[in-house]
């Protein structure tokens, strides 16, 4: 079978590369800091001096979008890390041991599904104080249930397979079976969960900062900038456009990569079946 080139994956990687260049540009070319105000640049349209224009306080939007992108990525990566570790451990235990443990964990997860996780994060962050740490923690915990549910199914399926039985007969400990034998075999699913989670965290973080609950000013965040620019939609549409375009770019790129990743996995799986 001729393997089709995975266009989605390449386009996605290309988009992320462009964003990477955008960030690197900030390291080389940085005439302004993200909080430096220039009274003359207040709400001015993009010029050679201010590539993306100036915001309501005369700060350089180009620099602030770069900082916002970094903030978004930082928060969503750390939150996803928390979700991945928590979700994988819970899902692994639940799927592998089954029975009462599995039943009770699944009941709890079902109950948590009844409350939208972003709502929980919103309530948690706003009541415990809007700091970056709290946002990361809240989003990370909010990701765990759905992560655990997906990982659990995989562990449940894998634990019935022969190689796990063989490892058991050879006297491998449960911990070794779970994380040395099974975990590498579910990597594609795990990766997919990670992509979905990063995606959701970026969206959730943007939503929180848009509501003014996430990262607090003067630290720039994409959602926060869009909220600031909303009031100037008529006279300074670029205020919303630039952070918005960068955010959509990032999300489209991630979405394409996660689709492409899922597809290569399907191709590999069907290829395996064919050789059997």
């Amino acid at each position, binding site marked *: 079978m001729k393997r089709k080139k995975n266009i989605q994956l390449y386009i996605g990687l290309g988009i992320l590369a462009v964003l990477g260049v955008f960030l690197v540009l900030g390291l080389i070319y940085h005439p302004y800091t993200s909080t430096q105000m220039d009274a003359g640049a207040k709400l001015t349209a993009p010029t050679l001096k201010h590539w993306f224009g100036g915001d309501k306080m005369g700060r350089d939007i180009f620099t602030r979008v770069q900082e916002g992108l970094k903030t978004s990525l930082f928060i969503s990566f750390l939150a996803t890390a928390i979700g991945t570790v928590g979700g994988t451990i819970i899902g692994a235990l639940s799927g592998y041991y089954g029975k009462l443990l599995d039943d009770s964990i699944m009941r709890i997860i079902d109950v948590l599904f009844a409350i939208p996780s*972003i*709502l929980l994060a919103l309530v948690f962050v706003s009541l*415990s104080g809007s700091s970056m740490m709290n946002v990361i923690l809240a989003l990370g915990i909010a990701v765990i249930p759905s992560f655990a549910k997906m990982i659990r199914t995989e562990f449940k399926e894998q634990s019935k397979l022969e190689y796990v039985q063989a490892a058991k007969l050879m006297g491998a400990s449960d911990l070794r079976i779970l994380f040395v034998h099974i975990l590498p075999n579910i990597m594609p699913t795990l990766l997919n969960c990670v992509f979905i989670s990063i995606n959701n965290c970026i969206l959730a973080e943007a939503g929180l900062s848009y509501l003014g609950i996430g990262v607090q000013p003067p630290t720039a965040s994409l959602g926060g900038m869009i909220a600031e620019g909303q009031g100037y939609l008529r006279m300074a549409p670029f205020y919303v456009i630039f952070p918005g375009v960068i955010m959509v770019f990032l999300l489209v790129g991630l979405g394409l990569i996660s*689709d492409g990743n899922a597809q290569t996995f399907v191709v590999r799986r069907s290829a395996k079946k064919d050789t059997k």
Partner: protein
Amino acid sequence: MGKYVLKKIASLALTLLAVSFVVFLLFSVIPGDPAVSKLGTQATPERVEALRKELGLNAPFIARYFKWVAGFVRGNLGQSYAYSMPVSKLIGGKLLINATLSVLAIIIVIGVSVPIGVYTAKHTGGFLDKVFTVINQIFMAFPPFLLGLILTFFFGIVLKLFSPGAYVGYERNFFGFLGYMICPAIALALPKTAMCIKLLRTNILEEAKKDYSKTSYSKGNNTTGLLYKYVLKNAIMPTITFVGMIFADMIASGIVIEQTFGIPGLGRSLLSAISVRDYPVVMAIVMLIAFGIVVVSAITDIIHAAVDPRVR
């Protein structure tokens, strides 16, 4: 079927009970004393103590929980700390706003995604299919509030079809209210519509590869007949489940969208209640949202069972 519905309702009640416990527990362990925040930091300890007593905050956890749940069952959502009036009065009217918004958005999702999903699946690889694949990928990535701003910009500022921020109350002019809700509903619905189209298309293509489709095809059925008679029935199942699931998402994004369009709905009440630590209001809103989500998920399960007897 009747037995299945009864079973669903019973499990619905149990889930709600569990949700109520989790919510109540959460708000009991969150740091911050509502009595202090109501009186301000200048309050004397005696006054704080008196207010805590008045609000019933000194009773043991279990006693407070049962009192709260019992009130809920009887339709008493508690007393707002900040406004000293029943919570139900405070948020009753807002409920209709958010329900309208979600229902409109769901109608758009279903109304747009089913025809396009079926069309693109039927004409796989065609020009429109390719166009929609690209459009879907982009729309999926849009946060609803950004879409809301784009819609405001084009329809409100450029085309002047509605005046941004000029919310029309439903009690004043119901049709004006509906009209104003269309843009927020589209903003909410578009990303989900894109996901729905993709899901439906994939499922139809998957079902069309199965043995029963091949058999029916070899018996002389044409593609169209096969599609509408057999394939669609099976392929629509995951979409039904998905629509039930996105309802939860819509309520959460609805809170954000309200801010974009200046709609005084549940989201605004929630944010203002949070800022003054008005826990009864916050808890009531979270519970109402959870209630809506659990009920919708039960309804989708029942629809699923009605269409497909195998899951009963």
